[in-house]
């Protein structure tokens, strides 16, 4: 009872704290100076139609590199914490396990139909990140969801960890390599003008942005697939793997 009282007090105090903030949020009439500069110069400077993408990939490219790094470390942490030592005794060990049930007809056929479409859609999203809403992170998540569907539908499906880690490491490496190329060939780290800007609004425009976003998409897709694969491993499969 007393604990509940303190909880209510805490939440009320927090509400009191954010209330002035809530009142002060008035709709702006004009863009903030930085945003206005991005909107005025962005399209001509970087050639990307999607201004959010030009902020994420180029103007704030270093932040995005940090974001990808955080995602990578989290993935590594998931894999590290869920690994299994041989002497580990888990609750339920030694209990005979039922053989996993095969997926139903609906799930099986549905995944066969949807998997290629989802893969294609994911690639489309990250290739068109500079033109339409979307980009590497969104496309990568769609690809990971396609892989999740495959894992749900096929009990015996095994991830090929060699390919996954190869794609992940190479895309991360080339992301940084393109950033360094920007230092040498253009104005700074992760500058997209190492390639010609092309015609505004077409697929092959905005310099290196489509390439960077494709690499990010591949990296995010493989990383999340890895997380899903690690979390999915059943006891029997882990024993087989060890």
């Amino acid at each position, binding site marked *: 009872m007393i604990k509940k009282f303190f909880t209510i007090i805490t*939440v009320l105090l927090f509400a009191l704290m954010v209330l002035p903030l809530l009142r002060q949020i008035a709709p702006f009439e004009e863009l903030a100076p930085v945003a206005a500069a991005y909107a005025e110069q962005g399209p001509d400077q970087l050639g990307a139609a999607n201004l959010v993408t030009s902020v994420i990939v180029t103007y704030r490219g270093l932040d*995005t590199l940090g974001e990808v790094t955080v995602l990578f470390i989290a993935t590594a942490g998931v894999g590290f914490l869920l690994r299994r030592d041989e002497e580990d005794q888990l609750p339920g060990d030694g209990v005979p396990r039922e053989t996993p049930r095969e997926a139903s007809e609906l799930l099986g056929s549905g995944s066969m139909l949807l998997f290629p479409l989802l893969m294609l859609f994911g690639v489309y999203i990250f290739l068109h990140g500079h033109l339409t809403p979307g*980009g590497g992170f969104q496309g990568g998540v769609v690809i990971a969801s396609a892989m999740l569907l495959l894992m749900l539908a096929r009990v015996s499906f095994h991830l090929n960890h060699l390919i996954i880690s190869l794609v992940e490491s190479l895309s991360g490496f080339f992301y940084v390599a393109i950033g360094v190329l920007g230092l040498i060939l253009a104005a700074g780290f992760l500058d997209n003008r190492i390639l010609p800007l092309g015609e505004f*609004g077409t697929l092959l425009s905005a310099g290196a942005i489509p390439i960077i976003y494709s690499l990010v998409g591949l990296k995010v897709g493989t990383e999340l697939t890895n997380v899903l694969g690690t979390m999915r491993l059943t006891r029997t499969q882990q024993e087989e793997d060890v």
Partner: protein
Amino acid sequence: MSLVSFIGFALILVGLWGMLTRKNIIRIIIGFSIIDTGIHLVMVSIGYLPGRTAPIINSAVDKAQAASQIVDPIPSALVLTAIVIGLAITALMLTYAVRMYRERTSLNIDDYKELKW
């Protein structure tokens, strides 16, 4: 104060309430995710300008006058980053929950007293 920012703050409070009152670790993590979503809504609502369109230059937006026709692209970019980080953190927390369950066969936070004072 817009409706979206109000809903965002309400979600933050709901999530805080959930984190403080629930005993199950999974539910605490869900409370964290609700706070996360609330913060994203507040951030997006800050960048919204009434009557304007998405920050993408296409047939709906004139390239020369883009600054007066689009909403702020920076909060959108920030929220995109925040969503990805939030996802990573949630995955890591769930992994901790799995790991804790392996050690003690319990997801009740009251069974973990080591950090309690």
